[in-house]
């Protein structure tokens, strides 16, 4: 069965970064069509398509847009989340450098649907080339007169994972430290500058032109129940052909890792799979036939998240992995609420002791108890994003944690991957002494 592309359609061996090339594959036709329709009719197509957010939480885009507060006398803002920084995820970047115009067309159609005249694209600061490509594409759109009266601002972040969380992003965009807000009020009611705001991920927005082209009902037939459409899966880790692959939702992990990704290098054994970015619970090799869709992942007690599939082979120590993941979240915790700020530090300290063979048996339980005290008790989902994966490593690979305690050392000491995980205290350059 030929695999149908939506977001990356037309990119096979073709450079679509110029507006003329994008027009050759039908670009901006759907914008024209959408603008000839009533905004409510455009929104109806998006609702019918049942496209769920591609940023992580999977909330239906059309429904979120329908929550926007009406007649407030304030402007309505559209904010595109291009902050992509969930470890393992690099799909939005590919969309931006391969089909910048599809993202921009999606922005313009969505803005029409929700009656917005102001669009912001918040792009992570590290993505310099992607910023340049989007900026060039936006210049072409402006020259072609496609903006109408609308303003579109490309706003570059400056290195903070938490600014991917939607309210952290809004704070950052308002010129503050990117610390999440408590909800409610939700952004649809009080978002950017306390005005109704729709925030969507790059991939979600880049899907919109095809939804208009195919019609919502036709789009909804791609994929499986509750998980309409395709996703651009980011495949990485111990796999032969890492990269981004756009596939229908419902594809199995086995198809992605083995048929498309070429399997594990040098015939090593599969040990674990992180199916949706570093913040989701881990799967074991036994789960390799699970399907990549929202419901199947929930049934496997994990999440589809950002669609980032990280493949882990037999050489990896799960304690080290947990430590590295915990270090990341500790580094990125914004510090606003106690369970996350303190809990992530505790997690790191206990995991260090376990890895070094200094931990007592009781500290294994303490680790789980710390995770438990974080779960569901934080202001934003970052706390959960730290606790869920680490608790799952202990749960699924308990023996390995146990051996660290009993043998008073890391059983992977001889592995070529020992010390694979560099400590994080090396991020901040020290003062240069002249």
């Amino acid at each position, binding site marked *: 069965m030929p695999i149908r592309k939506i977001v990356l359609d037309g990119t096979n061996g073709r450079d679509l970064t110029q507006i003329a090339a994008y027009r050759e594959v039908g670009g901006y036709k759907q914008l024209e069509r959408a603008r000839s329709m009533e905004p409510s009719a455009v929104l109806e197509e998006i609702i019918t398509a049942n496209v769920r957010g591609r940023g992580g939480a999977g909330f239906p885009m059309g429904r979120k847009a329908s929550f926007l507060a009406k007649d407030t006398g304030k402007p309505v803002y559209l904010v595109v989340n291009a902050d992509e920084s969930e470890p393992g995820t690099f799909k939005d970047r590919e969309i931006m450098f391969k089909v910048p115009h599809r993202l921009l067309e999606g922005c313009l159609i969505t803005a029409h649907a929700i009656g917005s005249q102001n669009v912001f694209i918040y792009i992570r600061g590290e993505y*310099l080339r992607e910023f340049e490509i989007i900026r060039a594409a936006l210049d072409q759109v402006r020259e072609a007169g496609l903006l109408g009266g609308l*303003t579109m601002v490309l706003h*570059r972040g400056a*290195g903070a994972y938490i600014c991917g969380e939607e309210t952290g992003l809004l704070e950052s965009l308002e010129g503050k430290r990117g610390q999440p807000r408590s909800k409610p009020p939700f952004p649809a009611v009080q978002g950017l*500058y306390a005005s109704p705001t729709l925030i969507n991920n790059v991939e979600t927005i880049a899907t919109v032109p095809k939804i208009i082209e195919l019609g919502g009902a036709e789009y909804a037939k791609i994929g499986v129940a509750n998980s309409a459409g395709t996703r651009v899966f980011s*495949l990485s880790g*111990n796999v032969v052909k890492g990269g981004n692959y756009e596939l229908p939702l419902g594809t199995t992990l086995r198809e992605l890792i083995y048929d498309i990704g070429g399997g594990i290098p040098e015939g090593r054994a599969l040990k674990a799979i992180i199916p949706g970015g570093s913040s989701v619970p881990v799967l074991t090799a036994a789960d390799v036939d699970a399907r990549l869709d929202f419901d199947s992942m929930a049934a496997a007690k994990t999440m589809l998240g950002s669609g980032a599939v990280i493949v882990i082979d037999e050489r990896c120590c799960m304690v080290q992995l947990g430590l590295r993941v915990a270090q990341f979240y500790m580094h990125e915790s914004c510090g606003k609420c106690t369970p996350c700020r303190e809990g992530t530090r505790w997690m790191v300290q206990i995991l260090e002791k376990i890895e070094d063979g200094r931990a007592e048996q009781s500290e294994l339980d303490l680790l789980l108890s710390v995770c438990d005290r974080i779960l569901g008790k934080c202001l934003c989902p970052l706390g959960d994003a730290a606790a869920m994966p680490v608790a799952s490593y202990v749960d699924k690979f308990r023996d390995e944690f146990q051996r660290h305690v009993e043998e008073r050392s890391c059983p992977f000491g001889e592995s070529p991957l020992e010390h694979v995980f560099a400590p994080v205290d090396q*991020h*901040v350059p020290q003062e*240069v002494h002249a």
Partner: protein
Amino acid sequence: MIDEIREIAAQYPDPKSAILPALRLAQERHGYLSPEAFEEVADGLDLTPAYCKAVASFYDMFHLHSVGRHLVEVCTNISCALVGAQQVLEAFESELGVRPGETTEDGEVTLRTIECAGGCGWGTVVAIDHRYREPVRPEDVPAIVQELRDAD
């Protein structure tokens, strides 16, 4: 520079929103966010230098201390780590003679580790002066360092 900052600020409904681009501009001009850099940003946006510093310190890309003329950033998050980021980092350490977080004695190159750069499938990702090289293997490192030394 104050005029440039005001021009950026005009794009936004509230000028304060321009703080990240303004800080970036100031950092590019001064090499890092020096006290004078904060003064300029604050003047341009009608904020206080302390406020600007509080915001800047939240973000990893801003330097509150002087750094080398070139920046080598090695991603050490999990996908890169699984394919040998540590070995790449060690190759840079030995080639440059510094530890991560340090700058070479001649003030030319700062080496540091970073979190996921968004190139995980093509790891190890290394950013050289903000341009990604991917994938980088330990054996590629001497040529990259040579290139930096030849750059000026």
